[in-house]
């Protein structure tokens, strides 16, 4: 286990500087950005200069840049992300309130992506160079080439506006939402915990389109990697051996080939998560999904410094954590990594 421990320790040591670099970039990028957070916050013109000055002092914007930077860093280490000028609440509170929505969307989206990607990719590899392989490959490139927001809008037109079978946007029907007291803020989980079938159906109906859109667009990537990694192993000696042993084609493909092909597929999952978050920005905007990505976009529009910085740090930490978990899983899947 020494190898894994050392590997994880290295990864852990590299993570904080990476997050610091991002934060520093965002911090200084925001300060040179045109647009004044105080004006954005007070809204409109004809504000007396002394009031603007008063807010500048209140937000600490009157101090020199480097002082603001170190002050902010110090606060972050104490768990203080500052206050959002847009919502008026502590940034951490805002993030924690919205994060479950994003995570719920991400989990369902990822599940759909893996389901579609792994199935199509494996199938294409087994039937490589036959019509079905070519069809699947074009489908995979196509899903990778489809703008996520466009697909979302098309589904909205078809299922929400024309057929009226699914809600256009949001997480819950306002009528149900008004009486709903969340426990975990993961609505599907909450519905199961409360044993409330109506709530569960409503939550799933709202989740259906955004999760599918996110999943389908990501599936192209997984599909491509599944195909090439399946092709890598499919003519390895141990697969030939398995086949010559007289195993069924099914057992050969799924037990011997796919299991080994999974290793590289798992490695890219960490990368997938960054893609997923990028996709979440567009998905959450399209479906008015009250998640952290939408919060970030609206904060950028409102020049809400602390909220932007807080959300960026949160997303960066999240991605690093997922990458670390993926690496650990990987090292257990592939014993060779340990030595």
């Amino acid at each position, binding site marked *: 286990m020494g190898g894994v421990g050392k590997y994880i320790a290295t990864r852990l040591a590299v993570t904080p500087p990476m997050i610091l670099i991002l934060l520093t970039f965002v911090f200084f990028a925001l300060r040179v950005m045109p647009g004044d957070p105080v004006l954005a916050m007070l809204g409109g013109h004809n504000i007396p200069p002394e009031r603007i000055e008063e807010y500048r002092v209140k937000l600490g914007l009157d101090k020199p840049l480097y002082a603001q930077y170190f002050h902010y860093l110090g606060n972050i280490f104490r768990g203080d992300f500052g206050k959002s000028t847009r919502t008026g609440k502590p940034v951490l509170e805002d993030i924690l309130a919205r994060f479950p929505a994003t995570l719920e969307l991400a989990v369902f989206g990822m599940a759909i992506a893996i389901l579609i990607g792994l199935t199509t990719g494996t199938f294409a590899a087994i039937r*490589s160079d036959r019509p079905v392989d070519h069809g699947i490959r074009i489908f995979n490139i196509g899903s990778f080439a489809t703008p996520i927001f466009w697909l979302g809008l098309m589904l909205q037109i078809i299922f929400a506006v024309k057929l009226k079978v699914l809600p256009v946007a949001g997480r819950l029907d306002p009528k149900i939402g008004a009486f709903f007291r969340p426990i975990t803020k993961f609505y599907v989980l909450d519905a199961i915990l409360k044993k409330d079938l109506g709530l569960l159906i409503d939550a799933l109906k709202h989740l259906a389109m955004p999760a599918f859109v996110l999943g389908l667009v990501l599936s192209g990537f997984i599909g491509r990697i599944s195909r090439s990694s399946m092709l890598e192993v499919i003519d390895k000696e141990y697969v030939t051996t398995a086949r010559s042993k007289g195993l069924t084609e099914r057992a050969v493909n799924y037990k011997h080939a796919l299991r080994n092909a999974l290793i590289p597929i798992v490695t890219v999952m960490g990368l997938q998560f960054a893609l997923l978050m990028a996709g979440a920005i567009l998905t959450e905007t399209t479906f008015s999904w009250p998640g952290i990505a939408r919060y970030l976009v609206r904060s950028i529009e409102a020049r809400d410094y602390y909220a932007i910085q807080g959300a960026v740090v949160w997303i960066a930490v999240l991605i690093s954590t997922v990458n670390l978990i993926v690496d650990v899983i990987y090292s257990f899947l592939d014993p060779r990594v340990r030595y």
Partner: protein
Amino acid sequence: MTFAAIFRWIFRKLPIRKHYLLFAGSVIVGIFVVITVFASFIAPYHPTKDMMEPRQPPSLKHPMGTDHLGRDVLSRIIHGGRIPLTVAVASTVIALSIGSLIGWISGYYGGLLDRVLSLLMDSIYSFPSMILAIIIIAMLGPGVLNIILSIFVIYIPTYFRVVRGQVLQLKSEEFVEAARALGARDMRILLRHIAPNTINSMMAVSSFCIADAILTEAGLAFLGFGIPPPTPDWGFDIHKGQQFLQSGDWWLITFPGLMIIFLSLGFGMIGEGISDLLNPKRRRKRV
């Protein structure tokens, strides 16, 4: 060397049927380039000046309907490719140049510089590129040049990683060692011995990069961070069309979106086709 010359060379050497992805992708991209260049001659109406009956569904007069200001959607999507194509190609070329250069320096010289650069690039790479692009574009304000800048920055790490990895691998190859032993200078080793060996994979990476940049540009425009109206742009037209979604004006969203898909698909197919050429194993024999 232009793309066209490269493809002519490829097609002389290789059968089209076997490399249908590369062929089909090039045809799609070629059609889009022609449409974009000759947009003013092809489009039946002016994309910004001709105002007719607003929000008309597709008809014989307007095969793709009209938008909320009464502009012909077909004419707008014919003109709408200029910004995405320019932005995607320009940002990819700039990212390619800068990313390869620092990737080469980093991989070739190693040491502390390599560590610092790798850390810096990895931090950008592991973060959702879309978010960085939005922050940069919000910081710079709208405009074509600013969109190009916000997009090329996020692709630099991609090239950095590819080039650095290949340089590290090639550096220890015998032919590079031999060249160095013969007294070749760093620049010569790079240009004559390392660069030719990375060109093919760079072309595959670049095709995917352009495909992705088209989507990023469209995404930025959709979020309202694109070029200001009334310039026709697919992503922005979808953004506008979203306002009329509830009234069922499907044509405002459908057609610009299809254009984005086809163009991005074209570049994606080229990338996939080149990957096949480089890695014959990916399209192997049947069981």
